[in-house]
């Protein structure tokens, strides 16, 4: 029998591709449909945020941080203001702490909704779960719009608290949302959790072993799906997270399905935290006295939070001027992609798409 001569070919997936969640590019070398090599190419959304931050005031950077992970602007704001507050030694009022927790958890739900919806969309469920998730996200966006006046890039947090106190109609609306949401999560689970096709597509695909996950500095749901119980909210509680009861959902296999499930469970846990925070929310001021132009003493600080995508940290170096000397961003999306090549080699293009979708990245954060 004569052997057929075959040759691998290079397929460019991206930068403009429906499933690259922005402008990511993968140079995949394929043998038939099987990926034999893959090289991620970044930088199509590199806007130089770290450089721009060096020439802006500490407050003026907050709009920049909005645009990092634009699906979780509030989390970015939170991470940044925590870093600055650590750097300048500012304490914030109790009410603001609670509101920060509520808002950060709402933002986590919103971001996970998109992540889960986009992942299912990548699996090929023709926009339906995505649109359902988007509808739910719209409710959170409404709440955030009520607070900040914008729908996507909120710019709501300030060093020392918030811009404005929450309006009167916020808490009743939040209460309604918290009551409605669990039944929606159940409904989504009913829609696709046990779907045979989804199980076949996602289970056992794109396995990220525990050791590798730690070694590549993965964080967030990607790390937890691999079975590492590592959540900054628990292991290094920032803000007032040590006052709430919640569990850290972890996966076992570290495959796409686990990552999807971990996100869904985290949404439930976030609702739990919001409920507790709403009960305990004290009255009082919303912002501590902070000068208009913050001038932290020379030094350095690293503030980090458990953002929806993973550990988001800001490493700030101050030289006692109104702008940071250096603002380094530890972007979870970028680091989670480190093992992309290992996870994808040997799988088909279709798997590559869902593996990529299950990592849940935002290009604004990857490239910065």
């Amino acid at each position, binding site marked *: 029998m004569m052997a057929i001569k*075959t040759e*691998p070919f290079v397929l460019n997936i991206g*930068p403009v591709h429906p499933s690259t969640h922005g402008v990511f590019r993968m140079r995949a070398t394929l043998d038939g449909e099987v990926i034999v090599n893959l090289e991620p190419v970044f*930088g199509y959304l*590199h806007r130089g945020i770290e450089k*721009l931050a060096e020439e802006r005031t500490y407050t003026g950077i907050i709009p920049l941080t909005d645009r990092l992970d*634009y699906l979780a602007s509030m989390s970015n704001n939170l991470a940044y203001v925590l870093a600055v507050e650590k750097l300048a030694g500012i304490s914030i009022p109790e009410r603001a702490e609670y509101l920060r927790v509520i808002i950060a958890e709402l933002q986590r739900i919103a971001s996970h909704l998109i992540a889960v919806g986009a992942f299912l969309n990548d699996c090929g469920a023709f926009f339906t779960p995505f649109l359902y998730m988007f509808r739910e996200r719209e409710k959170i966006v409404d709440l955030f719009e009520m607070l900040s006046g914008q729908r996507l890039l909120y710019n709501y947090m300030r060093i020392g608290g918030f811009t404005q106190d929450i309006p009167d109609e916020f808490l009743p609306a939040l209460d309604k949302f918290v009551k409605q949401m669990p039944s929606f999560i159940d409904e989504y689970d009913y829609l696709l959790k046990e779907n045979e096709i989804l199980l076949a597509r996602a289970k056992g695909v794109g396995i990220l072993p525990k050791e590798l996950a730690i070694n590549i500095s993965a964080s967030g749901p990607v790390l937890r799906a691999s079975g590492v119980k590592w959540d900054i909210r628990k292991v290094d509680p920032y803000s007032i997270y040590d006052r709430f009861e919640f569990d850290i959902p972890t996966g076992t296999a570290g495959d796409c399905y686990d990552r999807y499930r971990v996100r869904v469970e985290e949404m439930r846990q976030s609702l739990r935290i919001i409920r507790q925070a709403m009960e305990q929310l004290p009255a009082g001021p919303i912002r501590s006295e902070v000068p208009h132009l913050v001038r932290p003493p020379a030094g350095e600080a690293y503030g980090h939070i458990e953002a929806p995508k993973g550990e988001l940290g800001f490493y700030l170096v101050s030289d006692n001027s109104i702008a940071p000397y250096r603002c380094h961003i530890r972007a979870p999306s970028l680091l989670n992609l480190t093992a992309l090549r290992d996870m994808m080699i040997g799988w088909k293009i279709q798997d590559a798409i869902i593996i990529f979708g299950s990592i849940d990245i935002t*290009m604004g954060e990857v490239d910065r």
Partner: protein
Amino acid sequence: MEVVQRYIYSDTELDRTESEAIEALKENSQQPIPDPDRWLDEELERNILLTSLDTILDWARRSSLWPAICFPACCAFELIAANASRFDLSRFGMEILRASPRQADLMITAGTLTWKMAPQVKRIYDQMAEPKWVIAMGACGISGGIFRSSYNVVPGYNRIVPVDVYVPGCPPRPEALIHGIRMLQNKIAKEHTNIKLSPL
């Protein structure tokens, strides 16, 4: 399967050609492309020019604007929100997001454009079949927005593609985008087309 050595390591050849394309485009697009305004003159004469065939054609074109995929950054999510259940662009027949630029009519430039991305966007625009329109969505699309002073950001899509409608905002609300799309539809309604049927 044995894989040829050159596929394993990153392909520097591809990097070099990409780099050349970026530099060339950067060189050639230092000035903004003027906004198309020929249709404004046509508007004056449209009573004479706009035939009933044009009316039907323009109706068809504005009723089924299929957006191409060009979603670099943040505004994309307001665009998707406009497409999603609550605002539902599909009412205007726009829910078919053609992933292939060949079949799309409208490019909604949702997001910051970097120089590294610029050749790709230019290419998408060139690949779109006539007639085609561009909506510059958001501050980054119009002027570079907050990132204008950055070393890697194109100050506005009108440096590389002609823009029909500018929708300001950072990001614009979905309603604002729909308003922009309706403005574009009004513009299309006034266009006169010389039909040249290309052979099948």
